[in-house]
């Protein structure tokens, strides 16, 4: 794996710089046509609709329910996006880290779960997909 994390780190710094001060951060939720949204949507659908033993184990580990694909959707509603951004930031950064503007993928799963991703947020080489309940309580992350 080529290490390009420094590039993204720099990009994040740049984004933080141009969107400061902290209270001016914005969260942009991408539409379902966005490539990152498609990837996460497809992954979540395969997890929640899978019927083999591996899918059952994965659902359990990711704390996601078994639902039909029709119950999985990409969300762009502003209020949901704001909640998702705040919850995501708290889940992936140390306490007290100033908020930054983020581009987010928000996937709603049934009525009880959200899966949120900031494609520009990385740990090591991995992106951080975070699972929340309907009250935006952190449940688990999955990363790969």
């Amino acid at each position, binding site marked *: *794996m*080529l*290490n*390009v*994390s420094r590039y993204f780190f720099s990009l994040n710094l740049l984004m933080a710089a141009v969107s400061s001060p902290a209270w001016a951060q914005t969260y942009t939720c991408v539409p379902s046509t966005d*490539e*990152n949204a*498609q*990837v*996460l949507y*497809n*992954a979540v659908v*395969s*997890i929640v609709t899978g019927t083999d033993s591996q899918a059952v*184990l*994965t659902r359990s*580990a*990711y704390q996601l329910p078994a639902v039909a694909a029709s119950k999985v959707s990409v969300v762009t509603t502003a209020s949901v996006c704001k909640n998702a951004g705040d919850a995501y930031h708290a*889940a*992936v*950064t*140390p306490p007290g880290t100033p908020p930054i503007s983020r581009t987010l993928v928000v996937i709603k799963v049934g009525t009880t779960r959200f899966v949120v991703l900031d*494609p520009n947020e*990385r*740990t*090591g*080489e*991995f*992106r*951080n*997909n*975070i699972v929340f309940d309907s009250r935006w309580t*952190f449940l*688990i*992350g*999955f*990363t*790969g």
Partner: protein
Amino acid sequence: MSRGRLEHLIRVCTVVVVAAGCADPLPPNAMAPDSAAIRALNVKRVAAATSDGRCTLPGGTCGVTFTATPANYYCATNCINGPAQTSLITVVFSKPIYQLIVIGSGGFFCSGDYGGVTVHNAHGDVVEQRGFTLTSQDDCGWDNVSCCLGDTLQFPGGITSLEITPPQPWTGDVCYPPPSDTCNPGYVSIWYSYSFYEKRPPTVSDCLTGDELLDQQAMRDLLRTAWDSSHASDVPASRRETNGYLFEDSTGALNFSLYQYPTDTPCNSSLPALSNVPGIPLAPGHTHPFAPRDTLFPPLCGFTTPRVYDTVTYGGASDLDITAMGGDMLPFYILDKNNIYAYPAIGVTLVNAHSMVRTYPRVDPSTGCTRL
């Protein structure tokens, strides 16, 4: 080869040694196997070779194509299939081929030089030169003409191009059988076919995958060594993602090199530029020292909340693996505790990675054999 058989070969477009006075048929030489029979044996030989997975060009249905410049034959004069051509023939294959056999069919003088072949690897380096030999010495007989030559290249690596030098001399006497002492001028004409494997033949003896590189012992050695260097049995914080390259060295053998840097973590590693890899880079491979669905607890890798190691979204790779490797136009391989993930060289995107990956369990669940 008798003159009568020479005429026959001209008619079937396989030999073009044209001798003056061809209108006078000559009795067959019962002592020597005729060239037509030898060519038939050659055809059988090629067919047998094809049936064992070889491909033959021209004529075969192969994934590999070739171009020959100026054309794939030599002909001194009176040519049937095209104009006279005596220039060096350069053949380029559309992708590397393996264990090449070059076969020449036509007519040339047994007492001369049979020409030869020079082959190149993907770097353009000369990796082997061989002079052609007669397929059957018995074919020469009293007429000093033979139909068939060839050679089996010994270079085990990928061959991407070659040059062929012609038989010499271009012209010479073709004589009537004894007791006649009449001779007439004849001319060389010969063209070439290429029998080869399109993929590198497997070098592992069991637990095959069908993946060309994963069925090479050197690739398995790379992944095994990288895994051992990842300390995957240690506590997560002591593990290290480890990277390496499989490459072909100058002898055509496969080898590998591992790369470890102080900045490597359980969740990240680095690779040198392709230009720094010795030999011809064939594929990078690296480890993810976890099992699918392992929970990674903070502060591992800088996580502030727990993460599950996910192999669903991209099929085992990370998005950075896909974007970083995609530009190299090489297949790439990832090994975790349970599986080997093989991605093709071309066409992998973030959206289709999950469907493009081929996943091979380290221990095959159906046969119980162990790959790694």
